[in-house]
């Protein structure tokens, strides 16, 4: 990367390195430091990345929700950039959840997927925010794109707790195996520390992904602005 270029993110290289080290350490901790779980055995170690990913995905989508409302109120492009960046990062973390869940579930339950409340809600969450991103791709005018997707984002976020509740109640009436087994039941203290450490590592990762994605959006905006000026300039001089 040429160092003459302006507008690099200060300290990004260091942050990425730190994050990689932190993630490596967290992976090591989850594999070798954490004690083996009694009932499920070693497969339970997937939990140390699976659960924090879920929480972080939810945090990311909450950021998107707030950014969407902010955009509708003040129409600042920065709010739109934050909204889409956080949504994409959230989708990445949700994808991790949806991939690690079945990998965990197959050895434990013998099936790849169960329609329990948590997994079902995660799936719908994933679909809704992919729709958010798809919708943006199908809207051409930048302001319409930002406004319309912001409204959809608000509706999607409000929908998620309702999806969860409906599935919870449904599952109390029609029980299905709970894939994640009482995840907070009887967590030994050492496990809690490893979990916290992994959570911190993943949060660091999220912040970096968010920052870089935000810069991508900011650059796109700058490029489109400059193209407008360049076009009008060339038209004027012709």
């Amino acid at each position, binding site marked *: *990367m040429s160092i003459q*270029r302006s*507008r*690099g993110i200060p300290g990004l290289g260091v942050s990425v390195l730190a994050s990689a080290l932190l*993630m490596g350490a967290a*992976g090591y901790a989850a*594999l070798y430091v954490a004690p083996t779980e009694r009932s499920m*055995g*070693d*497969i339970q*170690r*997937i939990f140390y*990345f*699976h659960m924090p*990913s879920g929480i972080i995905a939810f945090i990311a989508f909450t950021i998107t929700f707030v950014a969407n409302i902010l955009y509708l109120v003040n129409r600042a492009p920065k709010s739109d950039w934050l909204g889409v960046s956080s949504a*994409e*990062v959230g989708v*990445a973390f949700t*994808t*991790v959840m949806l*991939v*690690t869940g079945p*990998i*965990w579930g*197959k*050895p434990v339950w013998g099936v790849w997927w169960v329609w329990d409340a948590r997994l079902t809600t995660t799936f719908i969450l994933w679909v809704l925010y992919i729709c958010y991103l798809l919708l943006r791709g199908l809207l051409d005018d930048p302001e319409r794109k930002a406004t319309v997707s912001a409204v959809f984002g608000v509706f999607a976020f409000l929908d998620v707790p309702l999806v969860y509740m409906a599935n919870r109640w449904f599952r109390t009436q029609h029980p299905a195996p709970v894939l994640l087994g009482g995840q907070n039941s009887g967590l030994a203290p050492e496990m809690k520390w490893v979990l916290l450490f992994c959570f911190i590592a993943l949060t660091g*990762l999220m912040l*970096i*992904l968010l920052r*870089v*994605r935000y*810069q*991508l959006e900011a*650059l*796109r905006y*700058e*490029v489109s602005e*400059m*193209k407008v*000026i*360049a076009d009008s*300039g*060339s038209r004027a*001089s012709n």
Partner: protein
Amino acid sequence: MKNMGSIMAAYIATWAIFFVYYFTVASRVSRLRDDVERLKQTLGTQLRR
């Protein structure tokens, strides 16, 4: 470790997803920054005309 294959699959999948995502975003950022430089030069020559 029992089920090592599954654990490894989960870890690899996790890292792969994050790495691929970061890489695609970072490379697009890099390309756009080149575009910005190019456009700045174009605008510079336009203004000089």
